[in-house]
């Protein structure tokens, strides 16, 4: 597990073998940047190793999104999914999340790391982008772009607004909608039944590259020999062991294992927040349902944006000012 600088991803270089990288939970980054009125491409710190603490070198607005983690700013409890202001020298401490797996620290104006191949994301495998092409280490000092303070406003987290349940699953099971992929029909009937019916456990061999699941073995009716093809985050491959792998943000751009299904784009944030040891249910859906799910995410974001604008207007009308500046 490691923490790294990430943005919305490095697009347009797959044909050179460069995976998209970027945050695992796109929705959390979008919300975090929206809370701060940041450009959508602003980079953040993706935190997946806890506790994490950072000291602010200057007064600035920030937000923490992703899961739900206990946090303190200057020793006082603060909440995720809020835009907040830090004074110079304040220490933000983020504990291990009680819900979700990854937290995202966005800073007003974004992190000022060099843009490499059109992105500020860390390409961990290639060793470039982000902060010196590597995971963050204790003592790193990251430059910021345009410091500014922000109004203290919050958002309803997607986990609440876009909650998804499946019949026969407990509260903790993460439901992911998947669309059958290229080799779906080549698996045995029993395997296909098992695929959608059981709770797959996320193993410890899961990281930004991919999630390895356990709980059963999926078998093909006969083995197939595949030539290397393009891989995108969310694709579920079945290696010879029969235990599926879901490729994620840092996956290689090409692969050769049989493809049973793909987690829809609109549910990848759920998977990004699913913890090692927890269970996922893979629920089949079709293309139209996949598009509708993406529309739900867009509606959530539009509503969030609208509410934030209303808050900001009422703030300026009341002359409430910038809470951070009172400090």
């Amino acid at each position, binding site marked *: 597990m490691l923490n790294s600088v990430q943005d919305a991803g490095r*697009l*347009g*270089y*797959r*044909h*050179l*073998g*460069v995976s998209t990288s970027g945050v695992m939970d796109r929705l959390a980054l979008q919300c975090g940047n929206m809370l701060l009125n940041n450009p959508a491409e602003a980079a953040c710190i993706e935190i997946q190793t806890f506790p994490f603490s950072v000291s602010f070198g200057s007064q600035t607005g920030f937000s923490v999104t992703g899961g739900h983690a206990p946090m303190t700013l200057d020793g006082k409890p603060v909440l995720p999914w809020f835009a907040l202001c830090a004074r110079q020298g304040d220490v933000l401490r983020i504990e291990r999340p009680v819900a979700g797996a990854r937290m995202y620290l966005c800073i007003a104006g974004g992190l000022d790391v060099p843009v*490499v*191949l059109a992105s500020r994301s860390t*390409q961990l*495998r*290639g060793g*470039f*982008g982000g902060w010196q092409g590597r995971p963050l280490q204790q003592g790193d000092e990251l430059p910021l772009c345009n410091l500014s303070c922000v109004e203290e406003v919050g958002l309803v987290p997607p986990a609440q607004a876009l909650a998804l349940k499946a019949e026969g699953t407990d509260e903790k099971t993460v439901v992911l909608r998947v*669309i*059958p*992929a*290229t*080799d*779906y*029909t*080549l698996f045995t009937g029993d395997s296909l039944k098992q695929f959608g019916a059981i709770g797959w456990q996320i193993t410890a061999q899961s990281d930004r590259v991919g999630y390895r699941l356990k709980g059963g073995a999926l078998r093909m009716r006969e083995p197939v020999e595949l*030539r*290397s*093809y*393009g891989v*995108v985050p*969310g*694709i579920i491959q079945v290696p010879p062991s029969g235990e599926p792998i879901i490729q994620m943000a840092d996956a*290689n*751009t*090409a*692969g050769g294992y049989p*493809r049973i299904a*793909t*987690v*829809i*784009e609109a549910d990848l944030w759920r998977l990004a927040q699913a913890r090692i040891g927890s269970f996922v249910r893979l629920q089949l859906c079709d*293309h*139209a349902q*996949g*598009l509708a799910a*993406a529309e739900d995410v867009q509606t959530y974001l539009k509503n969030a944006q609208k509410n934030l604008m209303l808050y900001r207007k009422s703030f300026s009308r009341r002359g409430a000012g910038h809470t951070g500046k009172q400090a």
Partner: protein
Amino acid sequence: MVECVERTAPATALVNGEPAISMIGTSAMLFEAPGEFTLACQRRIWALMDVASMRADVAEVMPGVTNLMLIFSTPPECPDEVAADLRRAWDHLPEKHIKGRQFDIGVRYGGELGHDLASVALHTGLSPHEVIALHQAPVYTVCAVGSVPGFGYLHGLDPRLATPRKTTPSLKMLAGTVTIGGPQAGISALTGPNGWNSIGFTDLVMFDPTRQPPALFAVGDTLRFHAESIEL
């Protein structure tokens, strides 16, 4: 909402010489050509790559080995219509001959950095010198670049040199290692775990994000290997 014609199976298998076209999620489509891995087939994939990248709804195209992935900027309402377009194009497209760059690559065969040379020889029933001679003989073509930054999928390995990947991968194979994995030749682009058999080493840097273009190889480039040294 647009009404699409229902499709029963997610994909057709590679039968009857028909391409197999399948959706990978809502925003990617994979086109797989029927038949053997030949340069002629790959050249048609390159032609299809041009056609696909002209589409207004396509953000990226990613060629693989006799296949092509389309990444949509806007997911199609009716994937079958896109698939039909691709099928029509495939039926009529001529091969695209790319005049790529030519590389003549000096290899230090064998030694510590090519220490699987002996096991390739053992597997193929050839002497190490014969392996090296057969490896140097053909002109290889870069069919696609992918997997990791700058890695070129090469066509051209003599089938007599085909050697299965190692059951236990090397944990830290250096970038620049000249390899054979199954029926394919390669040059590793990144230092890291690698299951291909190392037979030599070159100093060429496959990928440098500060270079323009960052990847040394592009599709259609051709390369030959020659021995700078041999250490058995």
